């Protein structure tokens, strides 16, 4: 068992998926044990792969191990089912396999009693298969296959309760929005293939580094690829699907829309980072700009959001934007570090929110409140998640976020850094607000409050494990910790773009971001603690701003308007054109012309013998003339 056998990681859940799909109904407990077992097996298999990689990683020039087989090949065209294990994939795999195992266990409690309980686990297993494949893919085609696969699972799971119109619509919206990005991704992939003649990520990168692409061509191609990442990672302007995706069951939100699938975009950009570096700097500037825009949009929208899951969803967008900014500063290390810890604390936040929803069957924050007494474990875990998200020392988020601020300060313009620090303040504001409204103060809905109860152990145990990780995962930044675990050092010496970097504590960044974070918390505390009167007054005073944020900058409205007035109208115009112009005018028209001319021409049939006779004679004369002319 080593890196060559990495194909087993997706193969085990794939087999479980096939079994569940065909026989799930007949298995005891609808086969949830099979799903969990398969994913746990995946995680178990991940450990020897990791150990193998750690043995190899120190070697000079190590750049991952490729294995796999041909899927389609003829002549020189070759599509591979190929897997590549390297540091980047390992970090991603750790998050995917571990978090999904925990979330599947959590789901046993959360989904209990649902009429489609078995189907939930079937779809989740398919998702894990696709996600692991995405991470391990050694070529862009397989990556695209898995990419679409996770998107499809996301569609299935957002629309899990598809009897609700809103869920069905949200699922559709998510799929189509990400699909728009995927159009770009596929174009980008084929553009890269067109010159390099291979889909292999490594060969494409080598081809680019050898100067195989012209700068404009490569920039265009990577920007198309980036479009895919924008869609999947809910970046501006394709971010609108993520908040709506909260219609899915909470474990789905935790796994797909926080820890794994949405970071696939970040992962993709990190994978292709050498191409971005070779390409025109404009490409990375675009990444930074989009990431930063997303950060600011989501942080502001989160302040006025009232649905507990939506707030967490905005915080996810916020985090994804941060990672994109890190990538814009071409720091794979910072992005991946944040991705790693984010997987834990964001899943934790969602699962905490899930426990709240499960316990109270409410998700509007204004109907909750004072839950800390009723659900102490959940409150504790949520607090850990919140602090990690805000980035308070020494929680994991602190280290990762500071790394990003640090690289941004090194590589990007000061204005970016300023915005980043401001976003940290905003993050602190909305996360604290969420916590205060949900867990402290007076219960606003007595009925819900009375019924509230702590989640069963099968749910709270995974939450606690994640809480512990959310506290400590950030220490991987330290070389000592990394070495103790068997890594060559901290994350900076494990995952990097060009050369390993030792961890250096960024004092200035840490202080400024901590100040912003604490300031934000204090601000939120002042506004929302207790009856939140001040917050209401502030909202009244800045009414337009409040409305702008509340209506999500009118993006959804604008898109809906565009769909209604441009897309659907365009469709109707084309359909009208087809029916009336092409068919009724062109087709039926030519048929009508034939009928009409036939009708007119029939009058030349007078029925009078002399006329016909004259015609015959004329014909004879003409034939005779022709004959004579030809003979002469």
């Amino acid at each position: 068992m080593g890196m060559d056998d990495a194909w087993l990681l997706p193969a085990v859940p794939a087999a479980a998926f096939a079994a569940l799909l065909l026989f799930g109904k007949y298995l005891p407990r609808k086969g949830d044990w099979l799903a969990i077992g398969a994913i746990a097996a995946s995680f178990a298999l991940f450990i020897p792969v990791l150990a193998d990689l750690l043995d190899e990683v120190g070697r000079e020039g190590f750049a991952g191990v490729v294995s796999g087989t041909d899927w389609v090949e003829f002549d020189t065209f070759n599509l591979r089912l190929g897997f590549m294990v390297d540091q980047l994939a390992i970090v991603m795999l750790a998050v995917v396999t571990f978090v999904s195992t925990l979330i599947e266990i959590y789901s046993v409690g959360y989904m209990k009693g649902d009429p489609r309980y078995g189907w939930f686990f079937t779809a989740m297993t398919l998702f894990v298969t696709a996600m692991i494949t995405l991470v391990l893919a050694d070529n862009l085609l397989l990556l695209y296959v898995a990419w679409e696969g996770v998107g499809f699972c996301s569609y299935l799971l957002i629309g899990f309760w598809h009897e609700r119109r809103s869920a069905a619509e949200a699922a559709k919206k998510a799929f189509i929005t990400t699909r728009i990005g995927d159009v770009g991704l596929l174009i980008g992939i084929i553009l890269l293939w067109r010159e390099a003649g291979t889909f292999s990520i490594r060969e494409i990168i080598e081809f680019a580094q050898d100067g195989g692409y012209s700068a404009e061509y490569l920039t265009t191609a990577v920007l198309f690829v980036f479009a895919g990442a924008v869609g999947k990672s809910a970046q501006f302007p394709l971010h609108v699907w993520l908040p709506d995706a909260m219609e899915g069951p909470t474990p789905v939100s935790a796994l797909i829309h926080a820890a794994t699938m949405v970071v696939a975009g970040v992962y993709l950009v990190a994978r292709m980072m050498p191409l971005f570096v070779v390409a025109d700097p404009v490409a990375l500037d675009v990444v930074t700009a989009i990431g930063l825009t997303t950060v600011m949009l989501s942080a502001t929208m989160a302040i006025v959001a009232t649905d507990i899951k939506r707030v967490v969803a905005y915080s996810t967008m916020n985090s994804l934007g941060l990672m994109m900014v890190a990538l814009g500063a071409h720091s794979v290390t910072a992005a991946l570090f944040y991705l790693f810890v984010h997987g834990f604390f964001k899943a934790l936040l969602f699962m905490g929110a899930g426990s709240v929803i499960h316990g109270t069957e409410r998700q509007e924050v204004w109907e909750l409140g004072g839950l800390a007494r009723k659900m102490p474990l959940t409150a504790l875990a949520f607090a850990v998640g919140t602090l990690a998200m805000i980035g308070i020392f020494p929680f994991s988020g602190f280290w990762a976020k500071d790394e990003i601020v640090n690289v941004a300060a090194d590589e990007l313009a000061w204005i970016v850094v300023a915005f980043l620090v401001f976003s940290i303040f905003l993050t602190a504001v909305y996360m604290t607000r969420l916590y205060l409204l949900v867990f402290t103060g007076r219960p606003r809905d007595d009925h819900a409050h009375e019924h509230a109860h702590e989640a069963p152990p099968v749910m709270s145990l995974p939450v606690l494990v994640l809480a512990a990780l959310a506290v400590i995962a950030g220490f991987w930044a330290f070389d000592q910790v990394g070495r103790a675990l068997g890594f060559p050092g901290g994350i900076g010496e494990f995952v990097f773009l060009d050369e390993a970097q030792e961890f250096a504590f960024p004092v200035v960044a840490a202080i400024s971001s901590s100040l912003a974070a604490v300031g934000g918390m204090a601000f939120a505390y002042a506004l929302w603690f207790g009856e939140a009167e001040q917050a209401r007054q502030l909202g009244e005073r800045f009414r337009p701003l409040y409305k702008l944020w509340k209506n999500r900058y009118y993006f959804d409205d604008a898109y809906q308007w565009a769909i209604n007035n441009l897309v659907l109208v365009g469709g109707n115009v084309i359909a009208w054109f087809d029916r009336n112009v092409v068919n009724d005018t062109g087709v039926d028209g030519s048929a009508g012309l034939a009928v009409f001319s036939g009708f007119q021409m029939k009058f030349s049939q007078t029925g009078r013998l002399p006329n016909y006779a004259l015609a015959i004679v004329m014909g004879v004369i003409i034939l005779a003339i022709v004959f004579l002319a030809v003979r002469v």
Partner: protein
Amino acid sequence: MDWAVFATIAVPAGTAGLLMAIPSRHRDVVRYVALMSGSSLFILSLIIFGKYQFDDGGYAFELQLDWLGNVAFLGEKGITYHLAVDGIAAPLVLLTGIVIFAGVFMSWNIEYRNKDFFILLFLMVGGVYGVFESVDLFFLFFFYELAVLPMYLLIAVWGSSTDFGTFVRTKEYGAMKLVLYLVAGSVLIFIAIFATFVEAGQGSFDLPVLGSVTYGENFQKTFFPFFMLGFGVLAGLWPFHTWSPDGHVAAPTAVSMLHAGVLMKLGAFGILRVGMSLFPEGAAFWAPVLMTLGVTGALYGAISAMAQRDLKYMVGYSSVSHMGYVLMGLATMNEIGINGAVLQMFAHGVMTALMFAMVGAIYDQAHARDMTIFGGLSRNMPRHASYWAVAGLSSLGLPGLAGFVAEFHIFVGTFQADYIWAGALGILAAAITATYILRMLAFAFFGPFNERWASLKEMRIGEQFGGAVLIFFIAFMGMWPMPFVDRIAATVSRLPGIT
């Protein structure tokens, strides 16, 4: 096994004859005879597909019987009954077997003159097999007509009219338009066949003989459009596509399945087998036009489908869209693209057959096809909904299902042939496909359950089985396309003028 190819034509013809002998009151006997014949065709097709040796991509199962020779303008091998299968035909033969097999199940409940229905259906199937397997232009044309003409009666007698409120599209209109269009196409084909025959001067209609001649460049440029348009009409070439939605909608379920699933492929197959293999230079000259029309069809069909409310019209327009991809693939003139085109023929065949089957299954019960009046049907008809979903997802190009493999090859081929704009628009059309498929699913199957349809039940077991066969092949090709690619690529690489 050389008899297998002959049998695929003899069995439908024999079935038609046998059915004529059965008194029409024995409806069940008719059904079982049809089922027997459909199953044997399915097995025969599997045998042909499986046994085809793809090493060199040449003709296999060859059978050549003299028919007319040394008469008038005909030479030694003037017109021969020459059957053979190559790597392009093999998947399409398999497709025909699959679709007729499933089609018999979908036609099980036809009560009105079901004997005559099956007679015509099997005549048509015999014609389809004949086109895929004929290597003699005369018989290819003969079978082509045989495949098209029964359609008129099938639609006009067993079809259904559509009321749009302000106007009605009658089944007679659909039938008439379809047949007139296709016959007009065959006129062009006929002219081009004779022109080729005369130009070649070999006194033979045999394709290998005709293919051994090099035609002048101007001749090729003049006569390739005849094949391109003539066969293209049947392949739904924009703007000669309007017979397709109206005809498919008017047709009964099994006929829609066969027509959209298989007959439209005859057109694309004809362009490839006759037009491009005889006139490579002509094809290269006209490829940009074909590419433009193909892309236009792909986008236009997808956008039109988005505006449809009638389920069957949506599927009809999606056929136009997907056949546009096939034409794009052909127009690339490179191996990847043409492989993709043939793959897409197969993929589109099974998935569109499945879609039409599902429309038929719901129409039989609800007598309605307007997607907006349904809602939440997945509660009572979960299998039906999931079959729809598989067909739809395949058509929007979800990896793991047949559509993706085919479309991906086409896009790659298009980019390789430097039609970057066309490839990008094609990918965009695939995204639009996602829009209308998901819109349909959301309207009809998801959302709150509409109590008006409380009486709807799950599909009959036969329909489920027929659909499952189609789904199996959709998934099979999506997961493991090599058996298809091997066969197709071996033959495509032998075509002249392919880069």
